[in-house]
């Protein structure tokens, strides 16, 4: 099965643009200047490795590189567990 949720938006300047339509909602009256809205943080590669290393050790007792190697080899036991998937979801932080 293959499916996606696609949100289209236009950009004049490249990699990030304005949301033109998002399902079930309208956001035209709110924005990032909102006092209740903390800032988004773009993770650097170095931070990504630190985060993945910490999460992999806390969850599985192994380092980030070992986790990635075993994950990609299908050698992680019970890969559908939320705690493990949560670490796997962080792999794009580093590669």
């Amino acid at each position, binding site marked *: 099965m293959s499916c996606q949720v696609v*949100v*289209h938006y236009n950009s004049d300047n490249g990699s990030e643009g304005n949301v033109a339509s998002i399902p079930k909602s309208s956001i035209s009256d709110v924005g990032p200047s909102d006092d209740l809205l903390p800032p988004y943080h773009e993770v650097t590669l170095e931070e990504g490795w630190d985060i993945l290393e910490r999460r992999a050790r806390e969850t599985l007792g192994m380092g980030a590189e070992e986790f990635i190697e075993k994950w990609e080899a299908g050698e992680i036991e019970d890969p559908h567990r939320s705690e493990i998937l949560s670490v796997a979801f962080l792999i794009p932080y580093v590669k």
Partner: protein
Amino acid sequence: MASYRERLQLVVSCVTNSVVHGKSVSRSGRDDETRAFALNNGVPVPIAGTTPLLLRVQQHCILTQDIEVPSRQWSISLVGYMYTLQLRDLTEVVAYQWHPQRTIDLPYPHIHFGPASARPDSAVRPGELHKVHFPTSIVSIEDVIHLVITEFQVEPRRPDWEAILGTRA
């Protein structure tokens, strides 16, 4: 108007002041990029309510630009997510998951009813009902935040939460 990442931060701000972190990954030879988003880097965050709960939100998206049209329209496609509710002792209540790129043997969106919800003496799959992947349609983060506010009595942090989350189907 806000970017998708700001939109995601806005939606979760209805129940938490924790920060959404993200990383863009461009691959050579391809005109798209993957974006990984994680509230508090995937570590569950407390949300205030009558039952103390923890919330985890992680998403994967792919950003593509259509260079064939003059407007060079960008599209962002949600291609995976994890939305998890846990008790404060980390016992799972419910987990919405869709991770076709992470586990190719399980390509469809699904829900797990965790040990805090599934009876250990259930008539089917006793003791392991929490392992069952109940199929769902794709679930939005707006749906999950609406769920915790309206069904689990989580206190919204902002008065405009209904406007942010939008009209429910």
